[in-house]
């Protein structure tokens, strides 16, 4: 029994330390990366992984208690909201015309879609504007 406890303890601490490392790496990436898109990438991906690992480690520490249930609910909530917030930020940047380096092909696509929508609607108003 004590060996099983030891295994659980080691596993949970490995998960917690790995999650903390992910969080720290994500924070460093947010500060040090050169432009907006790589920063968003660093903070969103590393945060999701770090949050999951931290929650897993704390669940193992909690055992079969109410705390574990609350941790699982928090984990599900953050797993849904974190990527959604990143999507909202990145989407707002893309729609307002802020493109990554070397994405001119994509800009042309947006302009083509814009023109097609203008022709279809025969309005002065662009479909890409006003969505923010």
């Amino acid at each position, binding site marked *: 029994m004590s060996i099983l406890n030891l295994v659980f303890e080691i596993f949970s601490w490995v998960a917690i330390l790995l999650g903390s490392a992910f969080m720290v790496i994500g924070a460093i990436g947010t500060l040090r990366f050169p432009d907006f898109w790589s920063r968003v990438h660093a903070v969103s991906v590393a945060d999701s992984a770090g949050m999951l690992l931290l929650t897993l480690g704390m669940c193992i520490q909690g055992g079969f208690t109410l705390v574990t249930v609350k941790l699982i609910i928090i984990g599900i*909530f953050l797993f*849904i*909201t974190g990527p*959604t917030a990143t*999507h*909202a930020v990145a*989407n707002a940047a893309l*729609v307002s015309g802020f493109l990554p380096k070397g994405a001119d092909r994509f800009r042309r696509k947006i302009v083509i879609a814009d023109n097609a929508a203008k022709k279809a609607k025969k309005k*002065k*108003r662009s479909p890409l*504007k*006003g*969505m923010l």
Partner: protein
Amino acid sequence: MRHHLLLRVITKLLVGPILIFALYVQFHGEYSPGGGFQAGAIFAVAFILFGIVFGLDKVQEVFPPWLVHKLSAVGVLLYAGTGVYSLMLNSTYLNYSSFSPSNPISGQHWGIILVELGVGITVASVMVAIYYAFAARPPVINDEEW
């Protein structure tokens, strides 16, 4: 709005759990950290999130402005009424123990629940009212002029 499909789906998913969590914080306030103010803020956040994603008209169908303004007064009246009720029981203002003289602990539970409910209702409706006041302003810059 076609562009905001993901946000709309996630908002529909999250508004219910946020309201339930606000009620949990509200009615757990006397045993654990939490209480009326926090619960009211979380309750208002659900409506503000709904309003940001779906627009002001949709959220005002659910929670109309006249109801918001009435409720912000009802909460204060509930708070003050609890105090006046203990005055009518020949005790001091907001003395919860006088609600049940045989079992003062139970009386204090009832008093705290009523007062926190008043605080929660007022905070939630005032925050939603502030959001309505900001969101109902006409935009300074039209969409076409960006």
